[in-house]
C-alpha cells in the first residue's frame, strides 16, 4: 500500500494514532503527529512511497506541540526521537520542515552501517553522480533540476555508501530548496510539485520538491558511482566542467562526511574506493538549461 492510497483524513488519523510507518529506501520510520500540516505535506510529497505494515521500525519519531504551559502562549513544535528531543522547539508552522530535518538526523546519527557523505546523489543510465557542495553552492537547485529532467534521485543530502560493495544506496526523499532556488525551480519546471514554504527558518525559506515517481519506484536499486562533481553557482558564468584532483575530492568529502572518522579504517577504504571509481570535476554554472546540457552529455 502506498501513502497516496490514503485520504487526507485517513492519513491524519493514522499519524495522530501513531499508526503510520513509512518506508524510505532502506529505512522504515514510524511517524506520530497530530499536525494536519504534516499530513498534508506528506500526502503531497510522499504519495508514491510505500507504507510498511511490518512489526519492525528503524526509527520512531514524533512531531507535535511541546508539553507545558508555553504552548498556549506561542504555538510551537518539536521533534522527538523515541521520547528524546534533539532540537530546540520551532514555530508551529515549521512542522514539516522539522520532520524532514528530523528524518535526516535519524539517518545521519544512526546508520553507521553505511559511510555517510554530506552530498546529493543521482543516477542516469546506471551511473551515479555524487554532488558534494558547500552551503549556498547551488547543490540542491542542481539536484532538483536534474531529478526533474530525468535523472533518478537517490538523495539530496546524504550519500549512503554500502560497506559491503561500495555501491550507493538511495532514500529518494524530497529535495529541500532554499530561498531564491525555490523560484528558480518553479520557473524552470512549472509542473514540479513543491510543498508549502516554511519562512524564516535558520536556513531562510525552505520548501521541498516531490521526488519523481521513477526515483521512488526504483529506490531499492543501488547505483554504481561514476562521478564526483563539486557544483558552484556563479553569476554570468558559462556552464563547464573542470578536472578536480581526486586527492582533494577525497579530503573534501571525508571532512564533510557524517561518520567518516567514526568508521576509522573502513571509512578511509570506502571513500578511497569511491574516488577510484569516479572521475572528479568542478562544475561552475549560472544557467540551469546549460547546466542540464552539460550533465546530459556527461551521462551519454
Amino acid at each position, binding site marked *: 500500500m502506498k501513502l497516496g492510497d490514503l485520504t487526507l483524513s485517513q492519513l491524519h488519523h493514522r499519524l495522530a494514532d501513531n499508526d503510520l510507518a513509512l518506508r524510505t529506501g*532502506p529505512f*522504515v520510520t514510524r511517524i506520530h503527529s497530530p499536525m494536519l500540516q504534516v499530513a498534508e505535506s506528506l500526502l503531497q510529497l510522499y504519495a508514491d512511497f510505500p507504507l510498511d505494515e*511490518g*512489526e*519492525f*521500525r*528503524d526509527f*520512531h519519531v514524533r512531531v507535535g506541540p511541546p508539553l507545558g504551559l508555553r504552548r498556549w502562549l506561542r504555538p510551537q513544535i518539536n521533534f522527538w526521537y*523515541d*521520547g*528524546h528531543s534533539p532540537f530546540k522547539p520551532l514555530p508551529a508552522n515549521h512542522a514539516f520542515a522539522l520532520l524532514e530535518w528530523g528524518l535526516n538526523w535519524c539517518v545521519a546519527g*544512526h*546508520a*553507521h*552501517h553505511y559511510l555517510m557523505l554530506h552530498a546529493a546523489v543521482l543516477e542516469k543510465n546506471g551511473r551515479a553522480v555524487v554532488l558534494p557542495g558547500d552551503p549556498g553552492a547551488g547543490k540542491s537547485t542542481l539536484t532538483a533540476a536534474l531529478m526533474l529532467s530525468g535523472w533518478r534521485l537517490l538523495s539530496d543530502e546524504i550519500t549512503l555508501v554500502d*560497506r559491503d560493495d561500495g555501491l550507493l544506496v538511495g532514500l529518494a526523499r524530497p529535495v529541500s530548496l532554499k530561498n531564491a532556488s525555490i523560484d528558480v525551480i518553479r520557473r524552470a519546471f512549472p509542473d514540479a510539485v513543491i510543498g508549502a514554504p516554511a519562512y524564516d527558518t535558520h536556513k531562510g525559506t525552505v520548501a521541498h520538491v516531490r521526488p519523481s515517481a521513477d526515483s521512488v519506484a526504483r529506490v531499492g536499486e543501488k547505483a554504481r558511482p561514476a562521478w564526483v562533481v563539486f557544483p558552484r553557482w556563479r553569476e554570468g558564468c558559462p556552464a563547464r566542467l573542470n578536472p578536480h584532483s581526486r586527492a582533494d575530492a577525497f579530503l573534501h568529502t571525508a571532512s564533510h562526511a557524517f*561518520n567518516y*572518522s*567514526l*568508521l*576509522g579504517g*573502513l571509512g578511509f577504504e570506502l571513500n578511497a574506493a569511491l574516488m577510484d571509481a569516479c572521475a572528479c570535476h568542478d562544475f561552475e554554472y549560472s544557467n540551469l538549461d546549460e547546466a542540464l546540457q552539460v550533465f546530459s552529455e556527461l551521462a551519454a
Partner: protein
Amino acid sequence: MTLARQCQPLLDILRDPRGMATLDLKSWDLLLRQAGAAGLLSRLAVLAEMLGLSNRVPDAVKPHLTAARSVATKQRQAVRWEARRVARALADIDGPVLLLKGAAYAIADLPPAAGRLFGDIDILVPRAQLDQAEAALMLAGWHTQKQDDYDQRYYRRWMHELPPMTHIRRGTVLDVHHNLLPETARIRTTADPILDAAQALADPTGLYIPADTDLVLHSACHLFHEGEWDHGLRDLVDLDAMLRAFAKSSAFWPALLARAQLLNLGRPLYYALDCCRRWLHTPIPDDVIAACPSRPPAWQRPLMRSLFDAGLASVHPTCRGRFARLATFILFVRGHYLRMPWHLLLPHLLHQALRRNQEQNR
C-alpha cells in the same frame, strides 16, 4: 508493575544475551529502542558477535547491530588515544594518576568494556597534586569550561572534582577527581587507600587503575549516591559484569566487604549488590549481602528498592512505572541531600534557580 515484567525485553536479554537468538521482530523493535535509550545497544551488539549470534538475528536488525558495533569500536579507539594524551600531559606530576570508570574498563580491557559507550574521561589524582595536575593539563590544552566565579568556588571548595575540563581543540571532556565523594557528603570516604592499591597499566605507561574491589565500590558509590539516573542501568550492567568476573577468585568477596568497611562505602555497596541480584540475576552469595558493613534498617528496604527500581526503569518510556516521575524526583532530591548538608544545599539551589531565571529573562 513487577520487576519481572518491567523493562522487557531489555532486562531478559541483559540477564541472558543468548536470548537474542530467538527474539521475534516485534520484540527486537522494542529491544533496540530500550537498549538505545539506555546506552546499551553497542554492548548488546558486541555481545551478539562474541556469542556468535550476529547471523541469527533478523535481517532488519543486522544493520542496527553493525552500526552499533562501529560506534563502540570508534569510542574504544578514541578513549585509548585520549588516555595516552592524558598520560603524556601528566607524566611529570608526583603520585599516581588513576583512570576511573569507563576509561579504566576500556584501557584495562575489563568485562564491562565490551561495547561500552563513554561520555567524559574520569581521572583521580592525589589531593596534594591537584593544582599541579590542573596546571599540567592546562598546558596540554584542557581548560575548565566557561563558568562564573560562583561555579569555580563551588567546585573547588565543596566538590571532589575540578570543574569539567574541555580540550581546546578536540572538545573532549576530562573530569579530574581527588576523591570519590564530595567533601560535604553525608558519607565521608578517603581516596588514600585507593591511590595506594592502584595497579599500574602497561599501556599507556604512567597511568593506573583502581584495584578490582575499588572499581566496584566506586561504580556503586557513583550510581547510588548521585541524583542522576540517566545512565543508571548501564552503570548497573558495569557492576554486574565486574562482579561476575572478579568473583571467580574466591578471595574477592571477603576483600570487597573489608574494603567497603575501610572506605566507609558499605551502604552503596549493599544497594549495588541488592539491585544487581534482583535486576540482572548476578550470582552473589547470600552471606555476602548479609555481611555488608552497612545495611539500611529493614523497614527502609522496600522503600529504597522501589525508588531505585524506578530510577533504573527510567531509561525508556516503555519501562517506566506509574510513579516514575515522583520517584525520579525523590531520587534527585536524595542525590542532593547526600551531596551536602542543608545549610549549604539550600543557598546553592537558590543561587542556581535565580541564575536560571536571569538567563531566561535575558
